[in-house]
Each structure stands twice: as C-alpha cells, then as structure tokens.
C-alpha cells in the first residue's frame, strides 16, 4: 500500500517575480559581461589563435602550427635569458619585499605617534614605484654622476660604476626599485595584525613566552593567510613587471640583456620586431608559468597557512 506523501508543490514552484528578478540581474550584469567578452575573453582566445600563426601586424596571420613554441624552446637563447632575468627578479625581490613590509608593519603596529602620516608616506612609493617618472628618477640616481655615486664618493669610495649601465649591477637596481614599493603589502599586513586577538598574546605571556616566541608562535601562524595572499599578489605582479625595465633600459633590455624582463622581450618581439605570433605564444607561456607557481603555492599552502574557519 502506497502511502505516498505528496510533495509540497507550492514550495517548489518558482515565485512569479523570480524570473523577472533574474532578468533584471542579467541586465545589470550585462555591462560586465560585455566587457569581459570583448576586453578579456575575446583577446585571450585571439592571442591563443595568433600564437599558432606567423603574424606581423601588417599582413593577415598565417597558420604555422606549433612552430612558435618550438622556436621558443629550442632556438631562442634570448627567451631563456629573459626567463632567467625575470626569475631572479621574482625570487629575490618578492621575499625581500614581503619581509621588509612585515617588519615595518609590526613596528608601526606598536602605536607609533603619527601613524597615519607614516602609513601614507610608506604607501606612496607603491603608487609611484612602477611609474615612468620613478623609472627615470632611478636612471638618474644610479647613473655615473647620479646621487648614489655622489653619496658613495663623499664616503671615500672611488672608481664607481654606472650602476644602471653595468650588466653586473643593473638588475639589482631594479630589484631595489621593487623593494621600495613595499607599501601595499605593508598595509595589508597591518590590517592582518589587528585581527590577531590580544588575549592570545596575554595567554602566551602567562605561559612565559618572550617577544620572539610570541611572534613565531602567535603572530606568524595567525598571519599566514595574509602572508599567503601577499605572496600570490606580489608574485603575479613581479612576473608581469615591465615599466621599470622598459624605462631604465630605454626599451632595450640592456646592457647586454641584463634587464631583459620576460614582458619586455615579449613587447619587443611583438611591437619592434613585428613578430606578434611569437609574442602571443610567449604570452601563453607566461600565463602557464604564473599558473604553475600560483597552483604550487595553493597546493603547499595547506602545510603552512592557518585559516580561522
């Protein structure tokens, strides 16, 4: 005997206004959807297609299959040079920048007088650091007769190089430029520090933990989501760094390719050598590289990132 319980049909029926509401939602979303398709998804698909073509911007693209990728990995030493330069930049400047930002955030979190002024002052280079003006300033400061050499000369140093034009030192000036823009991660760290419950420090103190122990056992674990977030953000930004190298090397990546960032080489191939198919392929390789490093970070985050939820 079937004793079925009839389902509550009223509850499953969609309210009449819901379809209308969805339509309204899509209408409001339309500008974003159009922008996404036209400005992001469209060019993304187009560049994937172009990466399999010989395209010089002036004539129609010709399909050449995977030749651009083969050339890149087997016949272009400059590609590997640009990877090495970018890799050095990323893996040296990002950790140093995060360490500096965290140290300053902890110092400022102690309730320094005039905190707002300090916070603004330290954040300012983050807004200006990637700009053309600062790139030019860097060129002047680290030039042969620049401010840096003037300072060193006054301290008694002699036979000083042109730091920007010396292949052994030019990249390090750009790394220094990136370190200078620690303001954004610093402010994020400061926000994170304020979320650490004060009672945990009190409890740690009662247990006899000193300042260093409190830092390593309380502050750092609770700050790991913020460290992780900053790491991902700065890693992606560093892989895409372009303006400082373009300005400081006057668009050449020199001297002797020592500042040939990946994105700069991509730009030169696309817009100076009119080799847009190859540049598109380089763009996709960069996307995959960034994806791999981001993915690895997420993969390993479960071992060191502590979430409150």
């Amino acid at each position: 005997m079937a004793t079925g319980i009839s389902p509550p049909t009223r509850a499953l029926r969609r309210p009449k206004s819901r379809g209308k509401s969805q339509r309204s939602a899509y209408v409001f979303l339309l500008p974003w959807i159009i922008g996404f398709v036209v400005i992001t998804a469209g060019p993304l698909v187009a560049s994937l297609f172009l990466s399999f073509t010989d395209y010089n911007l002036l004539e129609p693209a010709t399909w050449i299959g995977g030749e651009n990728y083969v050339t890149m990995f087997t016949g272009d030493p400059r590609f590997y040079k640009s990877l090495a330069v970018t890799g050095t930049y990323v893996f040296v400047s990002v950790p140093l920048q995060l360490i500096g930002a965290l140290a300053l955030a902890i110092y400022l979190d102690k309730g320094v007088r005039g905190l707002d002024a300090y916070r603004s002052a330290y954040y300012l280079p983050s807004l200006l650091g990637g700009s053309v003006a600062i790139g030019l300033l860097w060129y002047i400061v680290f030039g042969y007769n620049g401010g840096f050499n003037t300072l060193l000369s006054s301290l008694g140093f002699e036979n000083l190089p042109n730091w920007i034009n010396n292949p052994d030192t030019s990249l390090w000036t750009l790394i220094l430029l990136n370190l200078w823009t620690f303001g954004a991660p610093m402010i994020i760290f400061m926000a994170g520090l304020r979320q650490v419950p004060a009672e945990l420090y009190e409890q740690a103190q009662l247990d006899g933990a000193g300042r260093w122990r409190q830092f390593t056992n309380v502050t750092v674990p609770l700050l790991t989501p913020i460290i992780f977030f900053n790491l991902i953000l700065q890693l992606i930004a560093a892989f895409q760094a372009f303006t400082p190298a373009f300005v400081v090397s006057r668009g050449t990546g020199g001297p002797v390719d020592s500042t040939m960032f990946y994105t700069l080489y991509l730009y030169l191939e696309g817009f100076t050598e009119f080799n847009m198919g190859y540049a598109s392929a380089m763009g996709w390789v960069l996307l995959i590289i960034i994806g791999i490093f981001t993915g690895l970070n997420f993969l390993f985050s479960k071992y060191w990132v502590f979430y409150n939820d």
Partner: protein
Amino acid sequence: MGSEPSASVIQRIASYNVSRRSLFALGGGLVAAGGLASCAVAPPKSGATGTVRFAWWGNSERQRLIGGYASAFEKTRDGIKVQLEPAEYSGFTDRLSVQAAGRNLPDVFWMPANTVTSFADGGSLYDLEKLPKGTIDFSAFDTDAVDSWRLLDGKQFAPVYSEYSTATMIDRTAFSAVGITDFPDDEAWDWEDLGKLAVEYATAAGEGNWGIANMASFYQHAHLWIRQQGAEAFTPDGKIGFDQAALGSWFDWWQRWTDAGGVIPAAVTGGKNQWTQTGHKSGIYLTQLNQFVDSQAFSNGYDGGHELVLAKSPKVAGSGDDYHFKYYVRLCIAANAADPELAGSFINYMLNDPSSAETLGIASGVPSNPDIVSAIRKFDDPVAIKVLDMQARIDEVPARPRPEPPVGGSGWQSLVERAADDIFNGGVPIATAVQNGIDKLQSDLERA
C-alpha cells in the same frame, strides 16, 4: 604591466575576519578592479568628411612647430579639421604598427626609412597615383628625385617631406677655449684624423673631458662607414649587403680610440650619447643634419653659449666619393583613410605651402621642395644656413643609390645598437657580436 591594489580596497581588509572565502573574494575583487582600471577609452574613429588625422614624431619643440603648421591647413578651406597625433620617435613606429593591425591608422603620417617597405608591402599605404590628377603637385621637384622615392613595384606610396645626411659637429667655442683652432680639411679628412683630433681635444681639455661620445650604436653613421667600404646595408634585391668584417671594423675604430682616451667610455654616459645628453663632456659629435638646430639651441644655453660648426663626415682612407646618402622623412596616406582626396590635399599642403619656410624652416631636416629651401635661405638664419650649406656641399658629389631596408629589414638598426651594447657594455668580442646580429637579421629577412 602589473598593477597595485588601490588603498581603499586594501583598507577594507581591516574590517574582515580572514577566512578562505573572504581572501578569495578580495583577490577576485582586486583582479576585477585592475581589469577595469586597465580599460581605456578608444580614440574616436575618424570618418567624418573634412577631418584629417595626422601623426608625426619629434621632441616637444618639433611637435609644437609641426602641429602649429599642420593645424593651419584648417584655414585653407571651410569645414576642415586636423586632428594631431604626435609622438616621440622611440614609440612612433610601435604605435603605427598597432594602429595598422587595428585598421585604425591616421589618415596621414610620417614614415621612417626602416619600416616604409614593410608597411607598403603589408597593404597599409595608399597608392598616391590613385588620387585625382593634380591633388599633389610635384612640379617644384626634380622628376628623377620623385621617381627615386617609389617603392616595391614602382608605386608612389610615400613622397619625401624632408631629408638629411650625416655630418660632423664641432663645438668651436670649446675647442677655442683649449687653444685648438685649426681643423683638418673636411673635404679630405679621414677617420684617423677624427680620432687624433678627439684625443688632442681630450688631452687639452683635461680630466673629465673627451673628444667624442661613444657613438658606435648610431646606425646611420655605421651605414656611412659601410658605404665608404663599397658595401651597403641592403642590396637592391633585399639581401644583406655587408659582411662581418665591414661592420666589425666600425666597432674596431671605436674600441681603438676609446683605448686611446679620445672617446667617452660607455660606462660614463650609460648609453645616453646624444649631444643633448652628454653635458658637453666632449667637443665633437657625429650628427644628422635634422638634429643640428636642436643641438645648437641646447648649446646656446650652456656656459654662456657655445657655437657649433659643421664639417663633412670623415671617410675611410682610400674610399671613393659616392658614399654619402640621405635619409628620408616620408609622408603617407593610410590605405583605409576616410577621405584619401582630402588626405592628399593635406600632403600637398605639407610639401608645397610656402608658409612652411617661415614657420618650420629646417625643423625636421632639409625640405625636399627646392622652392621652400630657397625661401628659407631668404630669412638668413645662420643656423639654418649652416645646415643648408652642408647639405648642398654633400649633394654636389654624386652618390650611389641607397636601397630602403626590405620587408623584415627593420631590425638593421637593432643590429648595430645591440652589437654596440654587447661589445662596449658586455665585453663580447666584436666578431661574435656582429655575426650574431647578422644571423638574426638574416633570420628576420627569411621569415618575412
């Protein structure tokens, strides 16, 4: 290319309890904000009858002068507008390439020698002989000259607006100050004489001074060197016209006279070797005649004013006399120009309007129109007269033709610049650096 998150977005994190969800939401918001921030409003597309979009390159002063002259075209008839799109030289061709790819080239634009063939071959340029007869009046020009401007299958894509040769510039005030007043005869001098003069000046002027900046990367002068050896950058059929030895000897010369103390070491100038960038650390400069006005204006403001004089370029000992050449600033109409006839009228105005003698003079080199040149002379400006006299002296000697770089040959300039960088900053052996450059150029030509 990377963008930093805005302060307001970052501040908002302070109000969150950090959870995995909120962290991702924040990341997504930042990416979206960055994406929107990078959107730029596209310039309005020309198409309205009566508007000419005009693009050219130059420093701020040249942009002001040419822009003013171009805008005056609006007064020649009712309902015409000129939309100015100037740029610095370094980014000019890059921008044109992108515009060509987007079928959004300006109606009229200047075109440098290195890329004109590529643009013509790519179908980006309008064949001016399709215009109604008389739209562009070439009657003031020498017929052979006009014919020599033709490209590819003999089509008139890009008439020459102005032209210039290379020469040597000497800071007479600086030389006089150190007691050097006698200069070699510039009709007969060779590069050896120039090197000795550079060392003589450097010695006389003392520490911190040199004869000449390291200009090994200046490809037009390297081109002159190659021609003096009977070679050429490119052959008429589009092949590389020089070998490793011909270009390598150019770098040998710079290395030799750097070692002798006559040339500013590359480390001192940091790649900034233009006259206006080296701060009068030297007394000699290899110039292009279209730069002389700017150089003199710069030196007028230095230490009470320095007088610059021009001499012919030195030659390789034993070379013939037909090595001089002229580079061209060409005028082009986009293949998809909104109104080619109006664009043609604008080119005619640029080439022939007599007012340019007064308003522009030799701001971008020597005008190709002989009538304009004669009119400039009447103003008796001493700087302009020096340039015109030097160009006239160079033009007196018949020169063999200079084929334009072929399709794929725009990397010729990069070859010279990169080889100079590798040699003088990186210590790469000259032969290796030059051969690497030649191989790269050959690869570009084959791909094209």
